[in-house]
């Protein structure tokens, strides 16, 4: 009885959103534009610079946040393994990005990679580079993008949690960043990137970050194989409060991720901020309701998972859709991800330990497609209209960008994993897996029982 009332309320609110959405005024865009006159001469704006400095720090915090989100979900003998992998990625990619990663991704060029012109940040100075961000120092854009390059591979580790050998993990992450992240990033965001020139919209990284990492996660779960032990014990969280703490840090950091991607402290950033919060809330709520209906009780883990799915889905759309669209995107993404996690995964039997594919890839795909549906020039005149605003071509472009990323990331991630496996075996031994990664990979224990 309680359930049906809840469902009815949810449906009614959805109906309200759709109605309100239909009568939404188109004019907002001019106001946004008026607040954000584009000056022809690149000049550093202190407000924009301050916001992007803060945003960069916010996005960095997402990676330790993700470590706790994941760390709480694994067994207590593997929690340090998760924290260590996230932390190591922060260290490795920070160096890689300065040395050549930024150049491969963002130096203008029409090829597979960008170019080698900006190796070691040569020529990347404190003056703005107007083709990327006209009002902040070029190095600030570099460091903002670095944080995205860090969190993307960190997302993958949830799939091979509790059984990946640390040394093989390090090699995999370096190769994956070079051969998957950097090229895809260039195609979608770099000057001369072919998906960018095709008109694909990806505001803050639905394709580059979430679909990309989500597919790599699926591939690694398949290549590395299932965890030992009972098949139905998919997740046995050792510390759900950690997971909630991690979710909170992710949600908080995501304001930098999405609102920071406006690359300016302006109306567009505010729009991204509002829709980000809205979608996370709607998706968290929806997952709780789905749990209530299908699993008898609303679960903490489900609600947190839903919020993350909502954040994922709104990422590509944040700069192009309205708050009411964000509610629709948030409600619907939880339905798709819930099906992926509770129906598709058990049916196919791959052991994506922490549902990186089910949440990030599915959520990312829906976000990219939803951008093609709900995008509106009324929100962002530099963007495009989606299907619901009379431009079906945008949906086609979005689907192409998604498909290219899926195919490319799947194939190359598979090759990298297989090659690394030939040289050093990606999986720990059965004995090491039973003892846990904390002890066997790091000679440490997260928790003392007897002092």
């Amino acid at each position, binding site marked *: 009885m309680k359930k049906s009332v809840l469902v009815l309320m949810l449906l009614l609110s959805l109906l309200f959103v759709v109605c309100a959405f239909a009568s939404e005024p188109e004019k907002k865009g001019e106001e946004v534009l008026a607040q954000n006159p584009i000056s022809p001469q690149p000049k550093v704006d202190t407000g924009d610079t301050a916001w992007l400095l803060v945003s960069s720090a916010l996005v960095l915090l997402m990676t330790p946040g993700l470590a706790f989100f994941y760390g709480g979900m694994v067994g207590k003998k593997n929690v340090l393994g998760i924290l260590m992998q996230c932390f190591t990625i922060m260290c490795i990619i920070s160096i890689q990005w300065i040395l050549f990663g930024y150049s491969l991704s963002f130096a203008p060029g029409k090829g597979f990679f960008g170019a080698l012109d900006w190796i070691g940040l040569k020529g990347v100075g404190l003056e703005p580079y107007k083709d990327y961000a006209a009002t902040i120092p070029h190095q600030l854009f570099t460091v903002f993008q670095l944080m995205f390059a860090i969190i993307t591979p960190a997302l993958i580790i949830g799939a091979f949690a509790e059984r990946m050998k640390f040394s093989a993990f390090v090699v995999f992450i370096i190769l994956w960043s070079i051969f998957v992240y950097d090229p895809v990033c260039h195609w979608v965001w770099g000057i001369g990137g072919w998906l960018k020139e095709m008109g694909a919209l990806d505001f803050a990284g639905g394709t580059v970050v979430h679909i990309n990492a989500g597919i790599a996660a699926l591939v690694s779960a398949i290549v590395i194989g299932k965890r030992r032990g009972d098949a*139905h014990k998919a997740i046995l969280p050792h510390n759900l409060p950690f997971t909630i703490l991690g979710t909170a840090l992710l949600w908080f950091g995501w304001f930098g991720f999405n609102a920071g991607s406006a690359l300016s402290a302006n109306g567009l950033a505010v729009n991204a901020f509002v829709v980000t919060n809205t979608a996370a809330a709607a998706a968290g709520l929806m997952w709780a309701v789905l749990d209530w209906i*299908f*699993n008898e*009780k609303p*679960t903490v*883990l489900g609600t947190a998972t839903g919020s993350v799915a909502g954040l994922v889905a709104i990422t590509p759309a944040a700069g192009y859709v309205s708050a009411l669209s964000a509610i629709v995107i948030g409600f619907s993404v939880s339905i798709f991800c819930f099906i992926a*996690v*509770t129906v598709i995964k058990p049916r196919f039997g791959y052991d994506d330990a922490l*549902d990186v594919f089910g949440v990030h890839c599915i959520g990312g795909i829906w976000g990219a497609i939803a951008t093609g549906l709900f995008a509106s020039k009324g929100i962002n005149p530099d963007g495009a209209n989606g299907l619901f605003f009379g431009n079906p071509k945008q949906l086609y472009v979005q689907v192409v960008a998604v498909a290219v990323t899926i195919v490319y990331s799947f194939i190359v991630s598979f090759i990298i994993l297989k090659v690394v496996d030939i040289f050093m075996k990606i999986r720990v031994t059965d004995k090491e897996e039973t003892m846990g990664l904390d002890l066997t990979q790091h000679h440490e224990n997260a928790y003392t029982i007897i002092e």
Partner: protein
Amino acid sequence: MKLIIAIIKPDRLDAVKKELYKADVNLITVNEVLGHGRQMGITEVYRGAKEMGNLLRKIRLEIAVNEDFVEPTIKAIIKGAQTGEVGDGKIFVLDLLDCIRIRTEERGNIAIG
């Protein structure tokens, strides 16, 4: 000498301790343990994956007593732990071969009290 082992509900520990003190039984060891009886625990669900028959939290008491304290100890535990619902727990009584107080090396009955 007997060793009394009791498995009780966690929230009954304070009441049991109070009853034991009333019966002049002051030496107990307490453990947090997991287990279940016929009620088979609670089903946990993580992202739709169900965990059947999970273990419930219980408290395990160990009390070594001389013969004349056996019945008062059992009565005290029952008085403190009984709610009449399923899951109140069990009391086991075992023969105890010896008891040594480490500080003084005393043995037997005198070492227990």
